[in-house]
């Protein structure tokens, strides 16, 4: 068993949820309506809860004085391997929904595969995540449809967000060396297997929302190698502030 590869694989799966949870948490008290505010922070909480299970497991694999908190809070920017999509800023509500939708469709497919992992811990965390992720996907798809098929203005803003974030979707299907090792071991998910399904499911919702599927073929990537957009650094300053200022503080 290659422990380093497994450790890296787990971070690859769950850093996405951590960073997205933080982005959504920024909206606490700033949602466009009370109901969406609550929904978004609830999704944030779900994602954060999911992260804890993975990071606890990763900490066990790593051993030493590594803890779930040190993994989540004390890495440098280059050590986070989330995809670029989830670190993109909130901009307007259309962006929040588009980012969520483009991630949720992927996340659900990924968890549905991961529950069959030969690694029992990963399989059981994934099985638990699926139930929650289904609600997230339903929430974001509903809003894509409501805004896309809404007023002229909401339609334009929703399309703008989908167009802007589209370039980050291809990275979801990138496979790193460690991913490949874990796929070969029957532990990791071969994301390329459901790439077509992903784009098909996304297109179905966009179509129902009267939105256009973007045609641009230029895709940006880097997050999985730790090379991020300028937005991540600012996000991490917020995320890490407490642990850096008051090391080892606990609630």
């Amino acid at each position, binding site marked *: 068993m290659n422990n380093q590869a497994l450790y890296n694989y787990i971070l690859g799966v769950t850093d996405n949820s951590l960073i997205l949870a933080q982005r959504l948490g920024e909206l606490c008290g700033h949602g466009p309506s009370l109901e969406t505010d609550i929904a978004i922070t*609830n999704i944030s909480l779900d994602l954060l809860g999911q992260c804890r299970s993975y990071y606890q497991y990763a900490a066990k694999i790593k051993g030493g004085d590594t803890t779930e908190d040190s993994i989540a809070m004390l890495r440098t920017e280059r050590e986070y391997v989330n995809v670029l999509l989830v670190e993109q800023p909130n901009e307007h509500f259309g962006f929040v929904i588009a980012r969520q939708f483009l991630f949720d469709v992927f996340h659900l497919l990924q968890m549905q595969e991961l529950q069959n992992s030969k690694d029992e811990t990963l399989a059981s965390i994934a099985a638990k995540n699926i139930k929650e992720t289904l609600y997230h996907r339903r929430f974001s798809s509903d809003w894509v449809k409501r805004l896309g098929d809404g007023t002229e203005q909401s339609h334009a803003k929703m399309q703008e967000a989908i167009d802007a974030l589209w370039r980050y979707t291809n990275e979801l299907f990138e496979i790193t060396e460690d991913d490949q090792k874990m796929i070969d071991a029957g532990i990791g998910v071969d994301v390329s297997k459901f790439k077509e399904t992903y784009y098909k499911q996304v297109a179905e919702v966009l179509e129902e929302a009267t939105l256009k599927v973007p045609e641009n073929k230029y895709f940006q990537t880097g997050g999985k190698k730790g090379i991020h957009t300028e937005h991540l650094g600012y996000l991490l300053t917020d995320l890490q502030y407490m642990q850096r200022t008051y090391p080892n503080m606990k609630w």
Partner: protein
Amino acid sequence: MVKEAPKIASHLRPILESVPDPEIPVLTILDLGMIREAKEIDGEVYIKLTPTYSGCPATDVIGDDIRTAFEKENMKAHVELVLTPPWTTNWISEEGKIKMRDYGIAPPLSESADKLALLEGEKVVPCTLCGSTNTHMVSQFGSTPCKALFKCEDCYEPFDYFKCLI
């Protein structure tokens, strides 16, 4: 549907029954079906606890509350968090559902009725105040991720509906 009966030693049951859910204090953790196993070995207690939702901040508190409840009885309790099989609302006891409704939260309906309510907008969730099913969903997420927000169109009561998780 996973229908495994939890294995709980009967003499430990009264102590577990004294531990409320921090979010819905009228319910005990037994009502919610969160205890999957409780046994005593050589004077120490071993508990398997399953979280309802991954992000539920109450899970850590419940672990502490269980240990404290047993300490009062001069017993040491070891609480282990188990994720498999994942918790489902089917594990909430019938008594728990009644307590929940009296508390003002509509308990989870059957899986099919839940889908109708949340996806098709069918009026099937009864108002906790007047019992009318002339209700509609205001938001898929209520005050916590496990609940959706509903409103009664007859008596105008806003209330939480505990979503079905299968």
